[in-house]
């Protein structure tokens, strides 16, 4: 695939690095191929200055300033704000250069903070052209070049703001489709290129990269297979065609799982909301619910305690029923299946009684699986399962990474194993517990937290803000934090299982993650002063998928190193000190 992205695989690399781009027909006004952004940016800035000065000017001209200047301030504010922004933009233009070579795209920008960013062309996953109104009027396009970074990074790899439409078109074509440019076979891109000139906000031919939930970019720029596979251009591979027969079905809706969805504080929130709405609604029809309820029984005879108890039971039943209905409507007909997609298999979930929701996840992007068990429901084994994958937003409301409704750990573990890797079943592996020093560290922290609370409380007592009785709270706080420390310690565990690393941690949500070792991109070893005294180190395994990285906390120093060397085979080898030395 890299051969596709490098049209000139020849000569000394140093030399290649400095060869300016042959393809884009750009004015070679600067040596070394460094270009300025379009000079029209300056004209746009000038126009903005003029436009933002206009309201204040007009107001002055027609003598609106009769009220002693007070009415003018907002207009002056607009003028200053607009002019300042435009001037800043012009300065940015002045200090910005970019260069497209045969192997790299580079950008130099910034006045106070000088940034020189370079990005390899075969790492480029998407090139988006964006145009706001002012850009469209001036025939400019903002080019955003993405390298498949997770959205968590919150920045595109490189942004050229702005280029003329022709330059933007040329660069995008060149970056995304060097093969097609060379072979003069513009099959997949032209379909989209047609409406490029009529760019409506954003358009993109980064294939699936910005199109939908499958967005990210495991796909190299200009991948040749795109041309043959999807002649309809940017078809999101995440949307499987209609009624594909599943290869395998892993799980179907089980009504029994309702118990995992009704025990929640939300029950009371829901019942309060529904109750409030119901009373108000009935009130509009002249039905006074309060009157009816108070007439039902003799509340005075029951007494305040009994009344509270009855209200509590009624609220509980009502809330549980409401949540049960919500569970059924949301998850009715749930099916987790593997289906054929355009690029390998997809993991498909379908659910919903009234609205059917379907989410497809490309399996070649899945790097692992996570089981997480919330603390308060651990006694009943409640578990959530999410896939660790690139290109899915973790924060989306409909939680596309989740592949099962909350349910029993046993079933979740079995299904996750079957989906991920039935051969190795990394999530069922026995995990190595962590050393006692990790427990000691947590107990110390629990005590320190308690001491901090004690100090604050003590100070408040001394200054007579709270009564001295409040110190009794410490009797509750210390055992609670100590218990938390023990629970957090018992959650710790790790293992290497075939191609996976498995790590478990978490107090509030105990999360067990199985991650492909191939997917680990950066290894981080961390050691605080406190950990150093206890002989502990933590290992961070960073990856493009899921949360961006997973930590294995508090291993003995040697074990941490051993785990790190196995988590990313070969990466640490040049930096290791071997036994003999």
């Amino acid at each position: 695939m890299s051969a596709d992205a490098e049209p000139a695989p020849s000569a000394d690399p140093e030399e290649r690095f400095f060869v300016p781009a042959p393809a884009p027909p750009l004015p070679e006004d600067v040596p070394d191929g460094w270009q300025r952004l379009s000079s029209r940016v300056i004209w746009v800035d000038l126009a903005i200055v003029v436009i933002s000065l206009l309201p204040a000017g007009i107001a002055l001209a027609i003598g609106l300033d009769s009220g002693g200047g007070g009415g003018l301030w907002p207009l002056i504010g607009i003028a200053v704000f607009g002019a300042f922004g435009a001037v800043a933009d012009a300065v940015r233009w002045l200090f910005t250069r970019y260069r497209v070579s045969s192997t790299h795209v580079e950008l130099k920008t910034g006045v106070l903070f000088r940034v020189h960013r370079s990005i390899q062309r075969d790492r480029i996953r998407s090139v988006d052209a964006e145009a706001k109104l002012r850009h469209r009027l001036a025939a400019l396009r903002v080019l955003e070049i993405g390298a498949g970074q997770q959205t968590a990074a919150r920045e595109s790899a490189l942004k050229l703001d702005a280029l003329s439409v022709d330059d933007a078109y040329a660069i995008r074509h060149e970056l995304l489709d060097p093969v097609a440019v060379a072979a003069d076979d513009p099959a997949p891109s032209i379909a989209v290129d047609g409406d490029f000139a009529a760019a409506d906000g954003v358009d993109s031919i980064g294939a699936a990269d910005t199109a939908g939930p499958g967005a990210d970019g495991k796909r190299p720029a200009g991948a040749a297979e795109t041309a043959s596979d999807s002649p309809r251009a940017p078809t999101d591979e995440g949307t499987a065609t209609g009624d594909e027969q599943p290869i395998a079905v892993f799980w179907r809706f089980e009504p029994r799982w309702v118990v995992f969805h009704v025990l929640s504080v939300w029950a009371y929130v829901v019942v309060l909301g529904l109750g409030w709405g119901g009373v108000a609604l009935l009130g509009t029809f002249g039905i006074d619910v309060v009157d009816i309820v108070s007439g039902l029984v003799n509340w005075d005879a029951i007494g305040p305690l009994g009344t509270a108890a009855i209200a509590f039971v009624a609220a509980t039943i009502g809330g549980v029923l409401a949540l049960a209905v919500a569970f059924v409507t949301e998850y009715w007909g749930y099916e987790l299946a593997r289906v054929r997609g355009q690029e390998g298999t997809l993991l498909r979930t379908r659910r919903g009684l009234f609205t059917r929701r379907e989410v497809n996840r490309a399996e070649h992007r899945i790097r692992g699986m996570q089981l997480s068990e919330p603390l308060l429901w651990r006694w009943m084994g409640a578990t959530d399962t999410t896939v660790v994958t690139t290109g899915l937003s973790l924060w989306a409301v409909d939680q596309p990474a989740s592949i099962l409704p909350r349910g029993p750990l046993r079933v979740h573990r079995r299904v996750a194993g079957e989906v991920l890797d039935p051969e190795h079943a990394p999530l069922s592996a026995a995990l190595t517990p962590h050393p006692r020093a990790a427990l000691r560290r947590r107990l110390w922290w629990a005590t320190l937290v308690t001491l901090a609370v004690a100090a604050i409380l003590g100070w408040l007592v001394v200054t007579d803000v709270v009564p001295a009785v409040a110190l009794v709270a410490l009797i509750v706080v210390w055992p609670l934090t100590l218990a938390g420390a023990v629970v957090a310690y018992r959650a710790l565990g790790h293992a290497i299982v075939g191609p996976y690393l498995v790590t478990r941690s978490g107090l509030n949500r105990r999360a067990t993650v199985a991650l492909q070792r191939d997917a680990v991109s950066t290894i981080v070893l961390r050691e605080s002063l406190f950990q150093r005294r206890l002989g502990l180190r933590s290992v961070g395994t960073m990856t493009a998928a899921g949360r961006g990285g997973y930590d294995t906390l508090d291993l003995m120093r040697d074990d941490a190193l051993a785990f790190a060397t196995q988590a990313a085979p070969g990466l640490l080898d040049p930096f290791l000190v071997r036994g003999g030395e």
Partner: protein
Amino acid sequence: MSTEPPDPTPTGLRPPQHRIERRAIGWWMLQALFFPGPVLIGAIVAYALWDSARPWLIVVLVGAALMVLVAVLVEPFWRYRVHRWETTDEAVYALTGWLVREWRVAPLSRVQTVDGIQGPVEQLLGLSTLRVTTASSRGAIEIGGLDKATADRVAEDLTRIAQITTGDAT
């Protein structure tokens, strides 16, 4: 488990080869003054003007003063002793931190962008920060306090090598 580390088992991770510039101490000192400095000044002014708030303002004042003192007199020297970096044909390796130390290793085959960044103080001192990012949002490696020329050379080397190691880097 086919990829066990070869024997003899590793006994340790050696520190990266290169230290950073001594000027970085000055850079950290100046930086440390930028944020807590105004807080400290504000606290002193408030303490002088606002009688009734003195009982709790003294806590803020002492806290801010301690923060500034530590950040200016302790942290930069401590960091200078710890910080080290190294690049090879396969990886970038950096050791940073003071109270919490971090060893970071990223393979060049996963590198996506190589940046040279110069903040205002760094421009003043002729220093530069090298930032190497990978596809992971948490996987970036930052090496601050390099000489501008060194940073430029290393960035150039890295982009050149990273381009030879091909792959799609996720």
